């Protein structure tokens, strides 16, 4: 039996009826068409489905849509502002941290959760923050560099 949930997704109020066995990633992709969130392993191993739920990066394949009732969800679609890429997105492009792109939304959201908490992270903190996100193309070096650069850009922007 479907139940009605109300939540905020990328700043917008959403009300929808969901089945109990529907995961948050299925709800985002299949019901709302927000396909930026990728469905990878479905078992919490790969991190492709990472979204930010109430400020914390989580695997949306291991959250029931019904458990997100009343929560605030940020997906990759919610990062750009007024047509401008978020500094993390821009840094991923500039630093060549993207190849096939499948891990990128999850990587970027795990990085965003880190930078929201620690604007000036060490390399170890960056590597730990994305340790639940697997990339099979670029290797992690360029991704780490991109996150580091984005952190600088965000710090500079907030100082000026």
């Amino acid at each position: 039996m479907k139940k009605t949930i109300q939540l905020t997704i990328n700043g917008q109020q959403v009300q929808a009826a969901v089945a109990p066995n529907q995961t948050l990633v299925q709800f985002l992709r299949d019901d709302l068409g927000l396909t930026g969130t990728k469905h990878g392993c479905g078992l919490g191993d790969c991190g492709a489905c990472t979204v930010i739920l109430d400020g914390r990066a989580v695997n949306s394949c291991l959250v029931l849509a019904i458990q997100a009732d009343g929560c605030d969800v940020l997906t990759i679609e919610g990062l750009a502002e007024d047509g401008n890429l978020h500094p993390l997105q821009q840094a991923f492009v500039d630093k060549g941290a993207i190849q096939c792109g499948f891990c990128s939304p999850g990587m970027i959201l795990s990085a965003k959760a880190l930078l929201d908490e620690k604007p000036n992270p060490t390399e170890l903190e960056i590597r730990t923050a994305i340790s639940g996100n697997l990339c099979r193309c670029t290797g992690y070096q360029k991704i780490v560099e991109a996150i580091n650069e984005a952190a600088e850009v965000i710090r500079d922007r907030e100082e000026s």
Partner: protein
Amino acid sequence: MLLPRFDYYEPATLEEALRLLSEMGGNARVIAGGTDLLVRMKLKVEKPGYLISLRKIPGLDAIVRRENHGVTIGPAVTAAELSRNELLLDRFTPIALAAGRLGAPVVRNRATIGGNLVNARPAADLPPACMVLDATLKLKSFSNEREIPVGEFFRGPGQTVIEPNELLVSIFAPIPAPWTGGAYIKLGARKALEISMVNVAVILTLQSPQGPIIDAKIALGAVAPTPVRAFAAEEFLIGRQPSDDVFAQAGVIGVGMCEPITDHRGTMEYRCLMIETLTSRALRQAYEKALTWKP
């Protein structure tokens, strides 16, 4: 990967949750973080007809200091929360360190201490940490309540003494004595998203910074069907002056308590060598932590 069908309940009070559990018994499972349960349901290892969520029940996600005698941890406290809690880092170090090694950040933000204990995986991170801290688990059903020392909770892989109508409602650990230090070491092939090949939690209490050792507790994970205490190694340590040599001997004795298996993560022989090494290394870390103890 799809989840089988089930009915979902989100009780707003503990009483309501316990009533639901007593009515549905074995056909219901409790969901907190869901990082283990939903995986097992997707793999069709478990097919509960009902899920009872702890999300709306107030207080289950709190860490509460009990004056000067201990700490009460709610079962729905996440691993991420445990790993950054100042009181736990300072006085209950193995719990905070073990929580910080569980899965990866995306998992730790959902996974809970209650789930990690109740699922009773032999290689789980938090059970050995709770064992060395002498934690007591409070189990509640609609009509009953009991307290079980964590050392008597585990029965085998995935097996505990908890009844289908019972809920783990809190974890209590007494504050360790002055000049106590703790440590937790997890060995895997990589640093994140890893299941332990061997893990060891240690608590060491000194009479004073000059020694001798007056209390020691060692618990090992992934070395037997349940996490085990290395009692013989603990007894060996008590009364001795801390030294690398004494810690190394305790490691050798610790191996005797274990029955590790050979699997794709490591061979029995390698695990035995690692139990020895990691036990002595954890003792050394706990000793160094004990020396920094402050009232």
